[in-house]
């Protein structure tokens, strides 16, 4: 079970991108209303993109696991859930740091923020079920993962559907030229990092499954 051939070159590319990201962010123009604190956006939004991708990966793989019983799909599901929790945590911490300056408060029980927290908690529940749920908890966890991902469109579009204090989805398409390049550069870096993590994390699950199989063989 060797790593894919693209793994090492991609790791070098991602490391170089993350090394350059602070320079690109520092050189990006300062936004006229929010000034310096707006620069949190270049890591905050991409981390939510990875969170959403992880959640969809978890849900898609969970559907496959529930319908086909594929163990490989289950490996992808737990990987997606972990990504959702880790990158959702970054989003949930960096958001209030921006909000403290922009809104004057750390947190608001606003639709967008509350739904984002609920989705994040769904994936925390997924991981807790997998860790402490005992035998057979995989199926229940899969259902929780699907439920969590179903809420994501509500999180994303809530700013357009309801009156909230969070900036709307129109922010990204209307970014100025200097900001747009930096934003998409950081997003690409985060998405490629996600690809690397998925490769390593799925490999870890495959190894765990192999260890279980070998123990069973040893007992027979």
């Amino acid at each position: 079970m060797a790593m894919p051939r693209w793994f090492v070159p991609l790791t070098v590319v991602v490391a170089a991108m993350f090394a350059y990201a602070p320079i690109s962010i520092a050189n990006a123009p300062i936004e006229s209303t929010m000034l310096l604190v707006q620069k949190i956006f270049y890591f905050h939004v991409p981390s939510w993109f990875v969170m959403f991708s992880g959640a969809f990966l978890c849900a898609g793989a969970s559907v496959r696991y529930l319908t086909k019983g594929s163990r490989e799909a289950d490996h992808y599901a737990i990987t997606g859930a972990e990504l959702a929790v880790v990158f959702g945590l970054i989003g949930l911490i960096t958001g209030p740091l921006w909000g403290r300056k922009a809104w004057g408060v750390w947190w608001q029980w606003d639709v967008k923020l509350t739904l984002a927290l609920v989705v994040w908690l769904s994936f925390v529940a997924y991981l807790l079920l997998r860790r402490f749920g005992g035998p057979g908890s995989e199926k229940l966890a899969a259902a929780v993962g699907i439920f969590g991902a179903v809420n994501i469109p509500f999180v994303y579009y809530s700013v357009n559907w309801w009156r909230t204090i969070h900036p709307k989805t129109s922010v990204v398409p209307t970014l100025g030229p200097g900001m747009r390049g930096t934003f998409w550069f950081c997003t690409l870096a985060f998405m490629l990092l996600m690809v690397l993590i998925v490769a390593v994390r799925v490999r870890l699950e495959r190894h765990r499954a192999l260890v279980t199989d070998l123990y069973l063989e040893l007992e027979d």
Partner: protein
Amino acid sequence: MVPGRSRWRAVLLWLLLAAGPAAHVSLSAQEQPPKRPAQDEFVPLSELPPQEQLPAAPLLIAAYSVAWIVVGGYLFSIWRRMGRVEQELAEVSRRLQQRRS
């Protein structure tokens, strides 16, 4: 001493004691500028005096530090788990090999 006179003296004393602080409160209220209605008290963040404005740099540094620490910690945890599983895999494979031979 006539009891009626004493009562009147007590009432007069009480009035003097009560009127003193009341007059002070009334005077200090007149000295204060009139309160502005609540709707006029909003001050845009950009117009606040510099000492009341929250510095952005520590928040920005904190946000990027959190991102790096969380990602770094997660990668480290994967690396540790991978090491443990590979060690276990080697051990079980060795035991299985011994049993077969």
